[in-house]
């Protein structure tokens, strides 16, 4: 590509540059993006449901859910709108721990659709949810997750673009096929790997 006339740009340190996926910039704050208003989720009404297709396997109240084994992770996060934030700290329940508590020792299908209180959904292959790659996060930087950042609980899949980390999550559903979710139906990539810059359909 020919240079843009007069553009020099800014450079990160080599260490930071190596952590930044293509087309991203390093952001100090934590921008908030969402498709609609912040839903009001009362902890007394909070419920998380694991489903296989249409069939509920198990549901948890807020207290039951928080009694599951807790995991902490330290990750960089990457939003498709181009910002990346380094060194974020989260705690919550891994997807494997949720499955184990529901008595599932293996994923019933290879695909998962995450659902949220506001009707949002996003698809993630189960292989991307194993181990400490992903969790249902309930705290950020040591504090309960605030509503604007997806609290009480959000999915966290930090190795994919952040729209996959569904805010206000209220369930995971195993699906037979890789079902596109909210943004995936609206022009965004079905998988969303920041390192391959899979932003939009066809990338």
């Amino acid at each position: 590509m020919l240079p843009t006339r007069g553009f020099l740009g800014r450079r990160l340190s080599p260490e930071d540059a190596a952590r930044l996926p293509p087309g991203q910039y390093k952001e100090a704050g934590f921008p908030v993006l969402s498709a609609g208003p912040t839903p009001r989720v009362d902890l007394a009404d909070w419920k998380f449901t694991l489903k296989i297709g249409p069939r509920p396997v198990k549901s948890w109240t807020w207290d039951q859910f928080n009694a599951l084994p807790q995991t902490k992770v330290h990750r960089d996060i990457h939003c498709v709108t181009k910002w990346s934030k380094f060194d974020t700290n989260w705690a919550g329940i891994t997807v494997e721990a949720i499955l184990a508590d529901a008595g599932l020792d293996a994923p019933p299908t290879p695909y998962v659709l995450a659902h949220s209180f506001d009707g949002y959904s996003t698809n993630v292959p189960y292989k991307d949810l194993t181990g400490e790659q992903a969790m249902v996060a309930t705290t950020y930087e040591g504090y309960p997750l605030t509503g604007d950042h997806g609290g009480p609980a959000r999915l966290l899949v930090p190795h994919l673009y952040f729209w996959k980390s569904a805010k206000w999550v209220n369930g995971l559903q195993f699906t037979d096929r890789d079902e596109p979710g909210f943004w995936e139906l609206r022009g965004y990539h079905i998988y969303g790997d920041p390192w391959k810059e899979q932003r939009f359909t066809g990338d």
Partner: protein
Amino acid sequence: MTEPATSEVTQASARLVWQTGTVEQVVADTPTVKSFFIRVPAWHRFRAGQHVDVRLTAPDGYQAERSYSIGSAPEDDLVELVIEKLAEGEVSGFFHDVVQAGDTVELRGPIGGHFVWGPGDGGPILLVGGGSGVVPLMSILRHRMNVGPQVTAALIYSVRHFDEVIFRDELFRRVETDPNFRLWLTVTRETAGHSLARSGRVDGALVSAVLAAFGGAAPACTYVCGSNAFVDTASRLLLDMGVPFASIKTERYGGDPARDTAVPVAES
């Protein structure tokens, strides 16, 4: 957003490719906002409310990308990107300080399949913008003028200072000439000092006046765009005043105020 309208769901589309656009005109809108009118060679039609990605390349191959809202209507010849100059903004600063007519930049788009309006979405349309959050709302307003001028529309537009009103002349002209459009301009940090503006923040009294002006009809589509704090406050007010949750679409500026802000589309 529980049941997405089928109209907003794009079918599997072709890969969005980078293309070189030529800046044909640069217009200063306010002391900190400029419009860049860009000819894009292979532009396929966009929908009002969408945005584009812009990419700049340095001589050593370093690249910077940002997203910017489109302010022009889909029917317009040139794509109007409206860019606010932000302190420390790597890309917005470059646009403001360097870019002039004749320059080329790379673009990719259109992007965003949710914060969009078309004639099939109907009305009344309620647009609520804070600061440069008015940009995608202007695209919707201009598109409506072209394809559905009979659709009732209201714009609530909040600015800190009167001289920060983007599209001021055009908005005031539309107030005079468009019987189905109403403007509610509110200035938060000084006395408005203009007959078409009021002083104060977007509040319950303003929202109820706007809703009353729709003659009892609830807005069919509501679009709220601006900073996170603005969108949070405004959308909470709208919900309190009975605007249905599912009718409200929001876009919040991503980014630290001291940095370049994109007009985002995706959940984060």
